[in-house]
């Protein structure tokens, strides 16, 4: 029954004016797996996940979630499906404090429709604590006054605090210190153990081989293969990133064997 992937993308194409950012991309994420998404700068990783998150519209292609074709027209649609994203640029409001950012767009209100600050403040403190984010002095300080790594921690905490089904992390550890990177990787594993699906975008193959179950490689806006972590090597992935051949060109066999669940 759980053979249908949680997220399944078929033939997704996306152009920005004359720039062809994505061409006929296939991408799938199964339940409870950590799918790594790798590729060189400009390969289209962020664009792909923004299409899933409803930030960008796409030109053609199909997205199904939980076996059903879905149309995602905005961030709200994605959130309703249970898709949460940590964006590469974090998407935080500098002028708002940590609590306000954590609950942005989903503020908790009391019976008089007033913002329920105490509840939001307390939950934020708990979430950050559970992620071992201990370096933030006050969760009532504006995000502008946080360090780059602290901001990233807040962005990650913001995405995982909801009961989501798919968490997408676009380079979540790029600015993090050793301890915080560990925390995020541990978190990724833990999320998968709890049955959530995770998409992890990273340039750090070492990290990816530690936590990912499968690896999708994008190159120049096309997918060039899906690799099972246990059956591949870093060299093979590096080769795919730099010289991979698209899976969809007629006559060429798939570069990686599809795994049968």
């Amino acid at each position, binding site marked *: 029954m759980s053979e249908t992937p949680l997220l399944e993308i078929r033939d997704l194409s996306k152009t920005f004016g004359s720039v062809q950012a994505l061409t006929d991309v296939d991408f799938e994420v199964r339940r409870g797996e950590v799918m790594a998404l790798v590729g060189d700068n400009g390969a289209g990783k962020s664009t792909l996940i923004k299409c899933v998150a409803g930030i960008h519209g796409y030109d053609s292609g199909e997205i199904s979630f939980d076996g059903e074709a879905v149309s995602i027209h905005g*961030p709200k649609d994605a*959130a309703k499906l249970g898709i949460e994203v940590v964006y590469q640029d974090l998407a935080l409001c500098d002028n708002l404090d940590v609590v306000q950012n954590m609950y942005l767009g989903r503020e908790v209100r009391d019976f008089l429709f007033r913002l329920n600050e105490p509840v939001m403040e307390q*939950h934020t403190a708990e979430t950050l604590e559970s992620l071992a984010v201990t370096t933030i002095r006050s969760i009532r300080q504006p995000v502008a006054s946080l360090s780059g790594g602290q901001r990233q921690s807040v962005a990650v905490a913001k995405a*995982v*605090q909801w009961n989501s089904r798919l968490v997408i992390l676009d380079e979540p550890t790029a600015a993090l210190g050793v301890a915080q990177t560990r925390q995020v990787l541990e978190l990724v594993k833990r999320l998968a153990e709890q049955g959530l699906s995770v998409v992890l975008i990273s340039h750090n193959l070492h990290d990816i081989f530690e936590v990912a179950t499968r690896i999708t490689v994008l190159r120049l806006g096309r997918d060039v293969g899906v690799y099972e972590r246990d059956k591949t090597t870093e060299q093979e992935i590096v080769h795919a990133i730099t010289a991979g051949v698209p899976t969809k060109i007629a006559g060429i066999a798939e570069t990686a064997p599809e795994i049968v669940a």
Partner: protein
Amino acid sequence: MSTEADVVAPGIGLPEGDETEQQTLWQRAVGNVKSGNLGVLPVVIGEVLIVTYFSFTATNFFTAGNFVNVILQMAGVTMIAFGVVFVLLIAEIDLSIGYLSGIAALTAATLQLPDGRNYPGWLCILLALGVVAIIGAAQGTVVAKVGVPSFVVTLAGLLIWQGVILRELQVRGVIQIEEDWINKTATYYFSATVSWIIAALVTGLYALVALSGLFGQQRAGLKVRPLPALAKLVGVAVAAFGVVAICTHATKPAACPEGTPLAEVCTQPLGLPLAAVLMLVFLVGLTFLAKRTTFGRHVYAVGGNAEAARRAGINVARVRILVFMISGIMAGVGGLILAARLQSVNLNVGGGTLLLDSISAAVIGGVSLFGGRGEVRGALFGSLIIATIANGLNIGGYKTGTIYIVTGAILLGAVTLDTVARRLQERSGR
């Protein structure tokens, strides 16, 4: 929506009670100043300096009567500036507010004409505000949906609405307002007893709200900080009773009763002006809107990072349109009060320095032109400063030119302060 269970990291012990809770009020204030978050501090200091200066240089400045004067002089601009705060918070500008206030005044004045429609006053007010609300929303729609810069849209609005006013009034010239509902917004005074009751009510209500806030903190298991709340309550009480005390001491000339010697000048006590209460009502209502509702939170978010707001699922266009609507409505409220002071509408309505005074008031009050930073009360403080300067220089016998120069210098100082504060904040971050 229970959240923590999903992500609990095993075996992570945190040091109990972080430093935040232990920070004293003073430490927080110093921290705020260091990180460029000056709040209303410069305005309060500025106002004290200005009042002190005029008290010594202008006779009749430091009197109860003149205090009431300043309140009446600032009321219109304050209302308009309340709307400006929201527009600046989303990092936009509305240049049409001056003449929009004129449009509201003109609409109300026309509808109340005894030889015209002769509508009741409250209906005139509602319809006038409805007109400017629609205009504001329309201008906001062009900004938010089409993407034309607000500067251009509202500059066009400035010209268009000025044109409408000129066309409507060029024959008549002046429309007298005889309708009580409208006129009383600027001419009604509460009796001493009612004034004191109002002061007590304000203090009591504020205490109730503060108390329920503390209970909320306690219920959520947060550390309760009663001292800052108490300090604020004392401040509110002093302000409320202080204003009433001064206003009830003010007097105005009155007809003498039969048989008084000719040399004697007769007066009657004034009391708290209705305009002051109106300012307070809008201050509280709009502060609530900005700080305690999701809409207000989204206003700040759009001003801070519109793209982040969009990704958080906020309907950014809707927020922008509503903000321009608020701007229109508040311009209308201000316009009605200004017209009520004159008890008429003439060709100059909405013109002069009204637009610039209103924007200056918000900016002097610490609302950032770059969006996302500032408070509703800033408009009140800024407009108080502008009104005090104009009033003091006027009494001191200075000409209009001097008033412009001084106001301009203070505006420049305020914006410089804001810019420097922003730089400080950037430096203290990352």
